[in-house]
Every structure is written in C-alpha cells, then in structure tokens.
C-alpha cells in the first residue's frame, strides 16, 4: 500500500475567497479522501434575532452574504409575510424579481471571474468583473447600495423604480448581453479552458441526488431543480427555462452558470415588460405568531430561512440554511480520486460562499 499523507488546504489559500479548511488525504499525487471543516467566520446572526425587532432584522438578514444579499433579505421577508398573512402588492413582487435576477447576474459574473483566476486566466477575470461593474452600477442607481441593497422590507419594497428608468435598464441589458456573449464564448470555446475543466471533478446524477446537491452543481449533473419554478415573487408569471447539463464535471458547472446569465437577462426583460402599476408596499401592523420555512433560489442554489414568532416584536428562532452548506458533501465526493493540482479548480467550481454557510 502506498504511504498516505495529509495536506492541509485552506483556510487561507490564494485561490479561496473565503475560509474553508480541507484535509486532503493523498496517495502520491492522488486525493483519496477529504475531511472538510468550517467554523472560522461564525458571526451568530441567528441568535441576534432575539435581540432585534423583526422589521429591523431584515438589515441583518441581508448582511448574511455580501453577494446574494438581496435574496437573503427577500427570503426572510417572505417568511414573515407568510406567517402574518400579508398580501404584497404586485409591483413590489416584480421589483423583487428584477433585483433578484440582477443579484444572480452579479454573482455569476463574479464567480466566472474568480473561476478564471483559479486556473490562472487573469485577463478573463478582469473582463468578467468589468461587466459585473455595470450590473453593480444599476443596483446603486436603483437601490442606493452596490452590494448591500437594503431595498426589501416586510410588506413590500422600500424604493420604486420609475418606468423611464426601467426602460433604460432594459436597453442597457441589450449591450450587457452582447458583452456577456463575447465573454462566455471565450469561457466555453477556448481550448486551454476546456482542456483544464473537462472531466475534472465529475459528480454523477445519482450522487448529486443522494448527497443533496443544489443549484448549479445539481443542474450540471442533470438534476432539474430550481426553486424559481415554485413561483415565489413574480416568477410564476414569467417564462423560466431551467438550464441543465448532463456531464457533471467542472466544465458543465461553468456552462450552466454561463447559460444562466442569459436566462436571467431574459427574466429581467420579461419582468420589465409586464410590470404592473400600483403601490409598492403595504402597512404592517401586529407581530408574527407561528412558523414558516421560506425557500428561494439563490445564485448558488436553494436557500431556506426558517422563522418562528410568538406574537411579540422579537422572533423566537431563525435558522438559515445556505446552498454552500448542502454543496459541501458533493464537493467531498468530487474531490475523491482527483489529482492534487485540480483541487483548487474543483473547490471553486461549487462557488463556495463560506460567509453565508456559517452565518
């Protein structure tokens, strides 16, 4: 038997945006087992729910993640609204959908950039982030914040976008689409990239299902799971195409995210075309009593916010289950049997967001 050695990977590693620690058990250059551990940036957000009034907790829920912040705030609001039986105005639902999809565009472009950086294509990294900057500019113009939007509140949204600005956003998206088209063509066609990614970190469909892969990781392995299908916010009124690939390797995960950029643009344009007029918020009185599991589709997969209230201004319990946490068992499976040099690429291919996962 070959001698086994353990190499620590992370929590600080040039390729990792956030701290996760992996103990890689190696036989020669081959990874035979992986022991993941997290717990470096736990912030105690769930406990904080007992100390802040439930309408103020939206700002804290939003700060769970610095990338999909809007979707965190929205999911928490959805939970409270369901507990309190609040009917949200139609226009607010459409605005939530528009901002969610902008978050997805921004997150996927950020990931494409970081992924390019992980296999040493720094130029592509800069190009992806240049396009992402245009998305962030739109976010700032419409909500006042680049990455922490703070636009959602219980009972609707805090800001409205006037129709003239919506039209401008729609026209802007056309030119962004052209730029993304050029960018993704390089990602999907360039021989050096396909050579680096194909057949690396393969996750079969049965493994993806049994290990609970969510989001683009699951969809790249052929699982057609997308929470947007459930029709929360205004997704029920829009045509949604679920992007799936069958190969389950790192390249397929890249393809899924690249193609989702276009579906996101389509969804935003559809929402802008069909957005109804009307108010954007309703007045909320009383306090939540009861519990609810609120689910939504984050750029990384399924997000769950559990809220439980006892009729006072302070919630009893909040629980956040983020997609990265569910994607760690599939990551371990992908890493078993790979080469040591492929580990950074495979870890990045699940789009880890440890800040979310530890709350």
């Amino acid at each position, binding site marked *: 038997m070959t001698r086994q050695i353990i190499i620590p990977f992370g929590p600080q590693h040039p390729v990792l945006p956030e701290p996760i620690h992996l103990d890689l058990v190696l036989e020669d250059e081959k990874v035979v087992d992986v022991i993941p551990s997290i717990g470096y940036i736990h912030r105690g957000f769930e406990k904080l729910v007992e100390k*802040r*009034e439930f309408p*103020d*907790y939206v*700002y*804290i829920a939003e*700060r769970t993640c610095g990338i999909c912040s809007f979707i965190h705030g929205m999911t928490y609001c959805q939970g409270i609204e369901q507990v309190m039986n609040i009917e949200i105005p139609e226009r607010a639902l459409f605005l939530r959908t528009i901002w969610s999809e902008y978050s997805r565009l921004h997150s996927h472009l950020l990931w494409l950039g970081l992924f390019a950086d992980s296999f040493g294509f720094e130029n592509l990294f800069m*190009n992806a982030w*240049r396009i992402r*900057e245009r998305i962030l*500019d739109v976010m*700032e*113009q419409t*909500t*006042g*914040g680049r990455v*922490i939007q*703070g636009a959602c509140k219980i009972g609707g949204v*805090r*800001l409205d976008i006037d129709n003239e600005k919506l039209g401008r956003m729609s026209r802007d998206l056309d030119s962004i689409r052209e730029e993304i088209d*050029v960018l993704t063509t*390089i990602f999907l066609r*360039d021989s050096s990239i396909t050579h680096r990614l194909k057949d690396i970190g393969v996750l079969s469909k049965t493994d993806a299902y049994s290990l609970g892969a969510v989001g683009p990781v699951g969809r790249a392995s052929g699982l057609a799971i997308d929470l947007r299908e459930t029709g929360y916010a205004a997704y029920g009124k829009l045509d949604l195409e679920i992007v799936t690939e069958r190969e389950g390797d790192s390249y397929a995960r890249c393809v899924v995210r690249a193609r989702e950029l276009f579906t996101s643009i389509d969804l935003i344009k559809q929402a802008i075309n069909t957005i109804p007029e009307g108010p954007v918020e309703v007045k909320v009185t009383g306090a939540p009593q009861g519990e609810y599991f609120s689910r939504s589709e984050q750029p990384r997969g399924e997000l769950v916010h559990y809220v439980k209230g006892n009729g006072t201004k302070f919630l009893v319990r909040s629980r956040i289950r983020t997609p990265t946490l569910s994607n760690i068992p599939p990551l371990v499976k992908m890493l078993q049997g790979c080469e040591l040099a492929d580990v950074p690429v495979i870890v990045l291919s699940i789009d880890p967001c440890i800040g979310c996962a530890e709350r």
Partner: protein
Amino acid sequence: MAKTALITVLRKPATIRYPFEPAKKTDISRGHVVIDESRCISCTLCQKRCPAQAIVVLKDEKTWQIDRLRCVVCRACVDVCPVTCLFMDTQYTAPMTTRGVEIVAITYVKPPRPENPSPTGEAQT
C-alpha cells in the same frame, strides 16, 4: 479573443483613479448619515431602530452620538425620523485613524406654548 484584446487596448480604462477623481455615486447612494441638529427633538426613535446600535441620543445632555465604525448605513434612522432631521449624504465616510463616537450637540429649542389658553367653547368658534 483577438477582437476582445483589440477593443480592450483601444478603450479607456474601466477603473478610475479614485482619490484624484471622485468616486461614482448616484442621487440615492447611501454614503453616511448627517443630522440637522437644529431640528432634532430627541425622540430617540433612531436609537431604537438602529440595527447596529450605532446611535445614542442623550435627552438630558441634549446630544446625538453616532459611532461611524458601527454604522452599517442601512438608512433605517432616516426613514423613521418623524421631523426629517436626518439625511443620507451620498459621500462615503472618510477613513479614520482613531475609534470613537461623533457627538453632535442638539440646538433645537422647544417653542414656548401660546399663553392665555382660551376656554374650549371659544376655541371652537
């Protein structure tokens, strides 16, 4: 790819030289909170609603304090202020070298009540 490279060479830089050129901002950008101390009625609503507990209002000493390093610039205080004496400036907070709170003395003076209150019957006429 050659086309992209050519466009990138000919295009202006995507970045700005920040301290020398002003940062991009919009009309509704959340920069930092400012107070109009001549209108604040010390109602302490901003202190109660602040999710980061960055604001302290001392009624007796007539001061409004903010810890800029705790403030998360969420605009909750601006929304809740009943006399709209809080505003959101679009300029981001400047870097600082020392910790500490910024103390603003409230100069609001409650207007005196009108003297000689009329009997209720006369006031209605």
